[in-house]
């Protein structure tokens, strides 16, 4: 991704927490790299100029947690459609979870995804390999070969690592390759048969609940194993206030634990399920207002390191069924930014600097990925987003194949206007979006 025409992103609010930049100015991209990102840059005759007035220009967003379904369920999503959806959502890079069919648990499988991503020519797709062969929870997968082929982390996401001994070994072994071990924290015997949060709403609806402790027991187990092993444990999709307290406990003691939260867990509560809407069914489930509040505070105070989507597309007819039998998961790549802006920033929980830190700088830094900074010479992965643009979520306009979102019909604020990967524009908001932007500008 080099030798393209330079791009001059003009007149936006340049926001790069990694370099402590927050100024109105220009960003110049040249040969796929950041040339300059401070102050006004004079005329640049051969550059494509993109007007960023009113927008925030930040290092590209990185999603450390998504499901692209290829290989195995290309009818639901492909690496290409997922990468294009990511670009539309402002993500310059995503990390694909290994619960594909076959499971991404060897170097050949890693190589396949990387090749498909190169063909997609949209956002970068990094690969997360499986912790265990076949995600069966029995035998370690070949971390070394997968990392050599390009894997950036390991996880059995979709399934918890039930064996504490296997988790311990994974954390120890992963140290050799300086990669995080990502866990889906769920104690399976407590969660068995559950389809939503256990509490008053599950009691009303007659649905078997998943108690908070199912997550928290594994959170504290993993933190203790990280302390014992010295490995880096990354806790996926945190959903309870108890988990937040446990992570805080671990971080206070210097344990190498990082954690992510999904936009839906900081914006929706279990009440969203009162109509048995399977588009609000996910794992971990939507929790209570107390949990949402704790997670928002944890994003603010740094207990939660990053915001990830857990993008999980499903066919509409798989969701069109009885609640308990419907699959878990919602799509998130194209709504994550707006959900976070609307529910975290606009409500005063965090500022835009923190948002960019959680969606770009921290994922890059903590997972050792390219991007996440405007440092001179770094890859020109840039997200330009309009923080004021309000738009109505219409799943039929998504670039992902998935339509399973609980935000359908909602009006949200904040949208990616332009996404640049390696100096190349991979997404520009379509003209109707531009019209909306124009209308916003003229009205106020």
């Amino acid at each position, binding site marked *: 991704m080099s030798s393209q025409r330079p791009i001059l992103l003009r007149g936006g609010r340049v926001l790069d927490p990694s370099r402590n930049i927050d100024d109105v100015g220009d960003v110049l991209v040249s040969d796929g790299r950041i040339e300059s990102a401070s102050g006004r840059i004079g005329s640049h005759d051969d550059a494509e100029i993109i007007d960023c007035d009113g927008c925030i220009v930040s290092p590209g967003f990185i999603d450390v947690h998504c499901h692209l379904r290829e290989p195995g369920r290309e009818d639901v999503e492909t690496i290409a459609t997922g990468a294009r959806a990511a670009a539309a959502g402002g993500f310059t890079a995503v990390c694909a979870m290994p619960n594909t069919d076959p499971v991404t648990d060897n170097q050949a499988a890693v190589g396949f995804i990387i090749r498909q991503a190169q063909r997609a020519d949209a956002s970068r797709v990094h690969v997360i390999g499986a912790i265990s062969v076949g995600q069966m929870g029995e035998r370690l997968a070949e971390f070394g070969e997968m990392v050599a082929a390009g894997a950036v982390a390991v996880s059995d996401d979709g399934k918890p690592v039930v064996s504490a001994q296997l988790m311990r070994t994974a954390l120890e072994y992963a140290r050799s390759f300086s990669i995080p071990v990502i866990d889906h924290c769920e104690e399976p015997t407590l969660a068995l048969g559950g389809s939503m949060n256990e509490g008053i709403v599950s*009691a009303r609806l*007659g649905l078997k609940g998943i108690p908070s402790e199912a997550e928290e027991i594994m959170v504290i187990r993993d933190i203790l194993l990280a302390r014992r092993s010295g490995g880096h444990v990354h806790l996926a999709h945190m959903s309870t206030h108890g988990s937040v307290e446990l992570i805080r406990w671990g971080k206070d003691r210097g344990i190498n634990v990082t954690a992510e939260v999904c936009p839906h867990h900081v914006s929706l509560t279990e009440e969203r399920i009162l109509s*048995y809407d399977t588009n609000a069914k996910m794992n971990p489930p939507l929790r209570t207002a107390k949990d949402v509040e704790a997670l928002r505070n944890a994003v603010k105070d740094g207990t939660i390191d990053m915001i990830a989507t857990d993008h999980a597309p499903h066919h509409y007819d798989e969701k069109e*069924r*009885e609640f308990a039998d419907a699959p878990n998961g919602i799509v998130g790549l194209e709504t994550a930014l707006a959900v976070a802006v609307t529910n975290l920033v606009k409500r005063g929980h965090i500022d835009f600097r923190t948002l960019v830190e959680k969606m770009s700088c921290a994922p890059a830094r903590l997972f050792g990925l390219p991007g996440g900074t405007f440092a001179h010479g770094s890859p020109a992965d840039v997200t330009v987003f309009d923080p004021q643009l309000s738009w109505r979520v219409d799943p039929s306009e998504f670039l992902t194949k998935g339509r399973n979102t609980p935000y359908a019909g909602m009006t949200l604020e904040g949208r990616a206007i332009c996404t640049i990967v390696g100096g190349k524009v991979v997404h520009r908001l379509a003209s109707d979006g531009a019209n909306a932007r124009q209308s916003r500008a003229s009205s106020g």
Partner: protein
Amino acid sequence: MTSALGKDLLGLEFLSSEQIRLILDTAEPFKEISERSIKKVPALRGSTIVNLFFENSTRTRISFEFAEKRLSADTVNVSALGSSVQKGETLVDTARNLEAMRIDMVVIRHGASGAAQFLADRIESNVINAGDGLHEHPTQGLLDLLTLRDRFGELAGKKVCICGDVLHSRVARSNIWGLKKMGAEVAVCGPRSLLPHGIEEFGVTVFERIEDAIQWADALNVLRLQLERMTAGYIPSSREYNRVFGVTRERLERAPHDILILHPGPMNRGVEIDSDVADGPHSVILHQVTNGVAIRMAVLYLLAGGRPELAEAAKGGAR
């Protein structure tokens, strides 16, 4: 035409006390029809009703079928066994097919909570929930209310305790909502492993000892203990359950006053209830069964757009 109950009867949680009272009042004249030699009125003549039972049920299905036939509806019974459901047809496909056949009402029993609402959201026909998973069983709740009202005259202020496996009981949920709306005080009693976490938030009292519940209650609604709960580890054994939580004559004899005994059936005699209680003078269990037909007639009639004052007139149609 929208009935006084709306399009569907999915549960008692979202019915008003006026709507519940309307159903109970409408059931009163229908009771008498079952006493006649010719047990039939033409109130639903020409209507087509499908009884869609995805779960095995004997008494509820028969009760609905009697109610439908006594109102002169044309009925079709579909059970999951031997149906296209076994061939993998989804509930939504079943719904679309039923809709294409231009039926008027569907009575659905399904093992999944929310299945009745799922169907109701997708078809124009009236949907009656005959029990969905662990969620609600509204006609059972209504027949329990009618039975209690028959004996007490008024439900307000009466103390009713629901005993047993509340966690897995759709009857319990319908009872709690219905009783509270009619002004009764409600309690639950059972081992904590069979009570939903946070049940107190329903506004009910919790008794952990059956002896305490008996001291408090005017009526006990005793739930069936499902044997699979033991294999799932919720309780150690049915023997221990009977010794600790069973409704026995000895325990009832220590009550400060007579207690009405209800049970939605089928009963595990000698487990949650002893035979001399089930068949004893304070049991209204068979009265519940009789009332079940009248309640279901009332619900069918009201959902079809029948007006309560016409229920009396409907009685005369067969004479």
